[in-house]
């Protein structure tokens, strides 16, 4: 049995992210998804998870999630170094950086939130500006990756450990073609929503990384949709 830990689903599931795990679970009966709720101790710190997943959250919940995970910061570092799989999507990526700064809707005050400082980048929120929406096509380890971002913030840093090399669209901010974070088996991307459904070749990669067969449920249909979207994005980005 392979255990996937869904960290704080009441916070980190605002754009259909739970379907990432629902899809994986339906691909292979060996997968069990366990939810860790706010107030519970994360399972990965006891080595009880093969993979940890976190999705998008509201800006307010980013701060709360940092508070929840800060006591486990060293455990997270050790878990990454020991090769536990982490898949982190959307603005969940930001909490692993050094800090989150910028503005907020309700006042003219500036925010300055200390991050988990596991990776060396910081993010800047622009809550009073229009939301940024874009798509990307990129490459990871020979796989063509597709992504969709919808956000008020960008990350800034060197991104030496980037996940995806973007060749259409933008990376962690409009001035870089480096997208996400990839350290050992930690995969983080700003792309949100059902990332595994958008990227079936990567889903197969993760299944193999989990030591499982890489058959997908509705494989023909999901690959057709992926190819069609890829061609469409090649034409339109």
């Amino acid at each position: 049995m392979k255990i996937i830990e869904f960290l704080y689903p009441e916070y980190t599931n605002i754009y259909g992210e739970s379907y990432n795990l629902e899809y994986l679970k339906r691909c292979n009966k060996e997968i069990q998804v366990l939810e860790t709720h706010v107030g519970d101790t994360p399972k990965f710190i006891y080595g009880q998870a093969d993979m940890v997943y976190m999705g998008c959250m509201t800006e307010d919940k980013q701060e709360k999630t940092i508070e929840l995970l800060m006591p486990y910061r060293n455990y997270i570092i050790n878990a990454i170094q020991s090769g536990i799989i982490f898949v982190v999507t959307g603005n969940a990526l930001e909490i692993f950086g050094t800090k989150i700064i910028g503005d907020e809707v309700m006042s003219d005050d500036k925010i300055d939130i200390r991050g988990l400082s596991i990776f060396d980048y910081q993010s800047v929120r622009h809550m009073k500006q229009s939301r940024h929406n874009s798509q990307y096509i990129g490459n990871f380890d020979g796989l063509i990756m597709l992504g969709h971002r919808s956000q008020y913030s960008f990350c800034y840093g060197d991104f030496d450990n980037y996940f995806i090399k973007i060749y259409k669209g933008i990376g962690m901010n409009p001035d870089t073609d480096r997208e996400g974070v990839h350290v050992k088996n930690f995969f983080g991307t700003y792309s949100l929503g059902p990332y595994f459904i958008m990227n079936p070749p990567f889903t197969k990669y993760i299944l193999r990384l989990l030591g499982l067969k890489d058959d997908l449920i509705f494989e023909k249909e999901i690959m057709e949709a992926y190819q069609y979207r890829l061609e469409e994005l090649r034409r339109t980005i």
Partner: protein
Amino acid sequence: MFRFYVALWASKLMLAFYTLIKQPKTDLPGLLASKICPDFLSYIHKPALTITVTGTNGKTTTSTLINDFLKSAGLTTSFNEWGANMQAGYSVNLLRGVNLFNKPKVDCSILEADELTLDENMPKIKPDYILVTNICKDSLRRNGHPENIYNHIEHTLRILGDKTTAVLNANDPISSELGKGNRRIYFGMADARTNPFVNLGKDIAICPRCGGKITYDYRHYRHIGKFRCENCDFKTPHPDYMAEFTDLNDRTMTISGHEYPLISDTIFNAFNVLAAVAILRELGYRENEISSFLSTQKVTDIRETCVEYNGIEYYTFAAKSQNVSAASTVFEYMAKEPSDKDVVLLMDEVQDKNHPTETLSWLYETDYEFLNDPKIKRVIVGGHMYLNHKLRLLLAGVPEDRIVAVEDEADIPLYVDQYGITKVYVLYETDCVTKALNMRDSIVSYVKEGGRK
């Protein structure tokens, strides 16, 4: 002020021109006014009564009911009824309400208002009332998440202070928390026994005050219901206007002992009527006047139409793509509506031509599972997202032989059943009313010409 008067006269002239060519429903004069005088909304005179209607779902229906009632009661009104619910639309609305010397010439302005930009514009307009129908999951591309919308509306109410009354949905655990610094009026509904389905995505996951678990004594739909937190005193506020009995089949609702007709058999429209009654009663109108008016009303044609041919009713039915809450609620209605039917999905937004993959996220928050119902004989989907819809329907458990997915929407009529059903619903994105009507008519034409062999 000189700039303001130049803006006023120029935009008045432009509005007169568009009225002359029979295109009065345009926000171009409003754009011109704001370009000449960026603070146009602050300077233009407002009538004695200004009512803003905002919220994720139900704005158009609720504001139309309020406007049409006030007109029927003899008031003159201005209303941005053509869907321009941002700055330019407000400018044209208020422009219609003043003369060339900026003197009010209407009794009342009804402003249907976008939630996200509310705090940019309403502090300039200073409405007497802001009615919030609800806050639900909406397009993530524009609105992000419900907490973001809450913040924008609350920011507006804080700026306006106690001179603006907030009219709020007591059954909504999100928007009922708004306006702590304002006078608040609540409308609410007792258990209407709607037996709501459980939704895949949650509009609100935890108590906004303490983070505890929210439980319900009953739900009407989605997160709307009688709620309470298990850890703190957060609960449904006491409604000032309580629908103690709602019968969707008979289309009646009893509010504070008086029976009102409903405009449709859907729970979300029952809430729209309730919200309108609450504010009209608050304004002092009598129950009999309001119920008499409501008996003449139906859902606006831009939301629902029907034609009948050869024993089958062909509907267009607004569902709002990318608006997770609206689409899921309509899918639930499709499952509960007792007829055998085909459902056509025309849910791709026009804007998606430039954002072709955006819609993937909303597909996996929307309850396609509700379409897996034996009364729905066939789900037919077309357009550039057809493969994504097909995959989502398969994952939702809809049998493959009940799914038709075609790239070219023009092929859809070929696959609509002509036997074994009594209704066909064309569900469409609200920006695409004409497209939906054309599809409905194409389906009917195809049947008239002999249809599928």
